[in-house]
């Protein structure tokens, strides 16, 4: 075998870009690195939340994918047709292909509105919207601006979704938005979720549930949306319950990229990649790895997860190429700022085993956890700068490692103090 190795990275979003930039610094020049994506629009996805409220312009969120990659990384704009695991080849539309020694799947998650009856029908863009795509978020802005009275329903069709707190943030910001407009008394806000509470982890679920109640946002739980009826203006669950709306903001079902379904042995039922939760090696083949939303892991589909995974993934790829054992281990670390309106935000920090707890981050002195504060809101705003200038280039944020910190956290349940 020649010394010339090829690391092929499918996806030029958060995970693919971080992986490529880190690997370029770690691997010898004799190793080629290629990043593939179907378009050149790298979107700052956390910014989508702010677009419907006129707080961000959609255009400000998009930059060139190629421009985020460091020198010595090849960028290939192409649409993946499928992966041939046995031959170590990726085929592209148009008949071209690429051999690989290591393949990284970083193609994220896609929205699948057509999987829900009625969702992608005539009401889409009329009285039913999503803010999980650039076009959707953009179309929702005038609809919210013109809304002065009636029922707004925010619905998560099913998990997993990208950034599971974003729909809650949408509710909090909508509460702020309509109070600012002076019409909050004429607008009802209802959050409809398939979960049995506001969030997936008990302590945070309780805190976030309290916030929803304080802000007069009704919560409907364990609702599995079967049909979205735009004409009648109602959600209907599989067990026959109905929630009426004048304006529906729906987070559609998510799945992995289409080519994964066309590649035998690569993905699961939802086209996510079955992946070892600690090494990030796929279960499909030893030289295939997955990062970020594309990976089928019991972790949130969120940029912070992808960022922390990046450190572990790139170390394990280096080890794999040098024939060493993969002992870099990801602990499921995630954190996120939850925008709560009125210039405040809540910060949560957790991993596979430890749920979000109150206290301070990253140590005894730091940002307050699980508590509304203006400082956290500033943190959320600053994060966009960090994303383009520190996270994508693959630098660590000072004081924040991939392992979850514990020093500033209270181990007692949030409800008891």
């Amino acid at each position: 075998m020649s010394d010339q190795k090829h690391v092929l990275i499918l996806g030029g979003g958060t995970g693919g870009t971080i992986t490529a930039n880190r690997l370029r610094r770690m691997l010898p020049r004799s190793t080629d690195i290629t990043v593939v994506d179907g378009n050149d629009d790298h979107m700052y996805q956390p910014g989508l939340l702010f677009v419907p409220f006129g707080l961000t312009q959609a255009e400000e969120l998009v930059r060139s994918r190629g421009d985020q990659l460091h020198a010595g990384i090849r960028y290939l704009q192409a649409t993946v047709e499928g992966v041939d695991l046995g031959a170590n080849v990726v085929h592209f539309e148009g008949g071209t292909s690429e051999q690989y020694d290591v393949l990284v799947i970083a193609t994220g998650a896609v929205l699948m509105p057509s999987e829900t009856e009625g969702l992608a029908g005539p009401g889409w863009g009329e009285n039913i919207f999503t803010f999980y795509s650039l076009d959707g978020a953009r179309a929702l802005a005038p609809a919210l601006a013109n809304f002065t009275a009636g029922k707004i329903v925010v619905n998560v069709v099913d998990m997993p979704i990208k950034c599971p707190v974003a729909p809650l943030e949408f509710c909090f910001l909508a509460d702020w938005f309509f109070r600012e407009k002076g019409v909050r008394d004429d607008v009802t806000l209802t959050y409809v979720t398939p979960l049995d509470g506001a969030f997936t982890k008990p302590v945070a679920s309780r805190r976030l549930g309290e916030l929803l109640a304080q802000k007069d946002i009704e919560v409907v739980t364990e609702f599995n949306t079967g049909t979205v009826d735009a004409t009648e203006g109602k959600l209907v669950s599989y067990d026959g319950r109905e929630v009426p709306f004048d304006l529906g903001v729906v987070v559609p079902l998510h799945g992995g990229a289409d080519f994964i379904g066309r590649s035998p042995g690569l993905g699961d039922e939802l086209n996510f990649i079955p992946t070892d939760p600690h090494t990030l090696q796929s279960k499909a083949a030893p030289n295939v790895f997955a990062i970020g939303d594309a990976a089928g892991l019991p972790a949130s589909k969120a940029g912070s997860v992808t960022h922390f995974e990046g450190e572990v993934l790139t170390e394990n790829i280096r080890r794999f190429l040098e024939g060493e054992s993969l002992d870099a281990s990801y602990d499921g670390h995630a954190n996120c700022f939850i925008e709560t309106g009125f210039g405040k935000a809540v910060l949560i920090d957790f991993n596979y085993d430890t749920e979000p707890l109150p206290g301070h981050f990253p140590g005894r002195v730091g940002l307050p956890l699980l508590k509304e504060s203006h400082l956290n809101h500033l943190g959320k705003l600053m994060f966009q700068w960090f994303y383009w200038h520190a996270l994508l280039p693959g630098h660590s944020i000072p004081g924040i490692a991939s392992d979850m910190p514990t020093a500033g956290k209270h181990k007692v349940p949030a409800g008891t103090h």
Partner: protein
Amino acid sequence: MNVATVELADVARNDEGFFLDPSQWSDAMVPALAAQEGISYLTDRHWQVIRFMRSEYLEKGTGPTVRVLGKASGVSIKELYELFPKGPAKVAARIAGIPKPRGCI
């Protein structure tokens, strides 16, 4: 202790009714577990779902969500709700003696 001799009454379950130790489960417990969920008559379709839950758990370490059940168990979501009206994923998980499906984080 021989796990095969565990009686349903001795099985450790959490306050939501999910098994703490899935190895304590046996086929023989299924009718009684189903009755506790208000299902008095078990059809082949119920069994198909219960066995699928069980094998998914043993393979992946967590039970499937309703959506995965609908895609992979051979039973549509509509029929799943007819079989387990109070919520297929959770009810079938309790009957199959596995922990609450994580589904989602």
